[in-house]
């Protein structure tokens, strides 16, 4: 019997840090001894850049378009620490159908049986920020990924996107879709940011898997075209990613989240606005306010 491959999808608002976090998780998992593949599901095809020295790799769809068919070695590239990198690719902005592209690319990977052939332990899908059509929901449908992790900051719009994602997960949850593993809270530095995401997790009945601080180490690594794991292996930030990776590797039970309705979400945000104002005016000490 073949082993079960752990397939994970990372979703979240555009620009929130999905690719950065995914690449660092992948690099950390590899360091912990797992065989990892990261699949960028975004026409920008920049998901795996920091695993590949800051360079772009040929995408599944570009190769498919040029040659009519693809082989595994044309689309899989080995990155730092031995992480296998794949980019689905897609059309230029404003033309064609990127969603259909994701479907096609994921189908190709399935057909080529790359996970089995490479004996992969963990696959990470790094999916474009806004799930604008059915194509971008493919990794969490049809029994591809089993677990979804969402990256969010404490910004309201990021939380709004996470809440929408939860609604999508709930929708497919009864038909064998992926379930929610938890929230990766990114760029959490101020104490109130932590309180906000904690409260959001509590309200939607999910958990925070890790708090990742905003750190200049990440920026420095990115500028070298590297993950933090590779560029600053002994840094505190690397330690955070390693701990996160370990939790993800051990993670087994995902759940159906309980998203807020739009109205609830607005009320919830409103109540936080008041609290933050009180902290700002000094009416409440930062610690007491939260």
């Amino acid at each position, binding site marked *: 019997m073949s082993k079960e491959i752990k397939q994970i999808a990372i979703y979240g608002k555009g620009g929130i840090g999905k690719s950065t976090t995914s690449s660092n998780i992948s690099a950390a998992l590899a360091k912990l001894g797992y065989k990892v593949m990261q699949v960028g599901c975004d026409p920008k095809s920049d998901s795996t850049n920091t695993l590949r020295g800051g360079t772009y790799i040929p995408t599944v*769809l570009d190769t*498919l*378009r040029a040659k009519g068919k693809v082989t595994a070695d044309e689309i899989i590239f080995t990155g730092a620490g031995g992480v296998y990198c794949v980019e689905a690719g*897609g*059309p*230029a902005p404003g*033309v*064609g*159908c*990127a969603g*259909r*592209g994701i479907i*096609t690319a994921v189908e190709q990977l399935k057909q080529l049986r790359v996970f089995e052939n490479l004996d992969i332990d963990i696959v990470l899908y790094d999916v474009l920020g806004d799930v604008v059509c059915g194509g971008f929901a493919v990794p969490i449908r049809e029994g591809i990924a089993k677990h979804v992790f969402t990256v969010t900051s404490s910004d309201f719009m990021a939380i709004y996107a996470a809440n929408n994602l939860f609604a999508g997960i709930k929708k497919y949850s009864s038909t064998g879709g992926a379930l929610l593993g938890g929230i990766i809270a990114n760029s959490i530095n101020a104490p109130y940011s932590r309180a906000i995401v904690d409260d959001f997790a509590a309200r939607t009945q999910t958990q925070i898997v890790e708090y990742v601080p905003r750190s200049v180490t990440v920026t420095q690594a990115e500028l070298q075209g590297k993950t933090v794991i590779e560029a600053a292996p002994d840094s505190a930030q690397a330690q955070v990613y390693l701990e996160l990776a370990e939790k993800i590797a051990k993670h087994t039970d995902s759940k159906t989240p309980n998203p807020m309705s739009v109205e609830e979400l607005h009320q919830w945000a409103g109540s936080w606005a008041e609290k933050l104002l009180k902290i700002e005016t000094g009416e409440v000490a930062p610690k007491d306010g939260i």
Partner: protein
Amino acid sequence: MTSILDEPLPPLVSALERPRWSCALGGALAAVGALPRTIPVMHAGPGCASNFTWMQNGSGGLATGGYCSGLAMPGSNLQDSEVVFGGHERLGEELANAIKIMDGDLYFVLTGCVPEVIGDDVDAVVAEYANDGKPVVFASTAGFKGNSYFGYEQVLKTLFKSVVEKGAPKQNDLVNVWGVPPTQDVFWRGNLQGVARLLQLLGFRANYFFGSGADLDLIKKSAGARLNIVLSDLYGIEAAELFKELHGVDFISTPLPFGAAATEKFLRTVGAALKVSGEAVEKIIDAEGRRHYEYLEGLLEVFNDMEAQRYAIVIGDANYAFATADFLAEDLGFLPDLIAVTDDLTAEKREILLTKRSARVAGRYGEKSQVVFIADGAHLTEAVDDTWRAESWKKYHPAKRPAIVVGSSLDRGLAAALGAAHLTVAFPVSNRAVLNRGYTGYDGGLTLAEDVISSFIAAR
């Protein structure tokens, strides 16, 4: 040029069986294929062209001809790669090659579902050629936006917007005629030409856009026409409003004139609209009528002998259902008991038909005459059961026989179940080869009389 965002949303259809039309692309393709020296360029996924060639034309009197149609037409044949990366480059390539290889005076791009779902900017591709002086136009005809009739209307609108020249010199003897969707009206060629002959009797030249005798130069100059005549209560009306808005030509809408009675009305209405003196019109009616009835007399004995005055079930689209029922009632003295209109119509459009047609239906055909709107072929038998079988069950009143079902090839089973004769006139007609046959005008009436009577003796 047409933008997909300009178009009003068509009515929603859930699901229906045995529809008597094809999709917007099908209706549009039938129309473009019927334009003189025009090359259709299909921007669609694989399968559409062959589907229309065999299914649609095969159901439209078998004629697959046209200047460039059937499987000869160019198409972009969109594959997975075009869906993902956009189909505009493929269309540009296809268009360039079509212009190079195919000898045409107009290249007409039609879109199927695929490019419109992914949002191909067809306008931009077409504009590139049009700005270059190439005769390329485009109609947005995704199947999910409507059926054949919608596609026909889209083609008309594109013609009026992009082909008909603004400010053409007035031609006082010219009238434009449309409202007969090619192939969807299986007898479109004959019907258009029959109407053209009637207009000739009134002293006018007809520009009828489609089929043999239509002329692209005349189409381009058609803004100079005196009047637009729409041979339909529904099809081509929106296009007529657009024509009026763009080129300032008024229109009238009249039913398809099948046979002598309807033709008389047609001549009077059109004559009045074109300011032909009443006296002259009556003279034409007199002379043509005399000739017509001389012929019809030939069937008089057999008509009486066969008890050929029958109850009829008439099934057809908004054009055919009423035109045929009128003919059967007024020219042959039949009793059209049930008139089933098979279009998928909004409540508004049903209302238009009922107000325009039902007075005549109720007044002339007796109280039992009923109009039903049934787009779903599966429900047609129920309507027949309600109005018809219920009657014929009565032991001593098998009052509604003998009978005839005048409809489409889909109604063969119904006719057989009723033990009635069966004549196919409405789409789909797959049991007849139709070339120049038509039912409009006096001569068309003779042809329809022949067809009706022949259906009674088909088994001899």
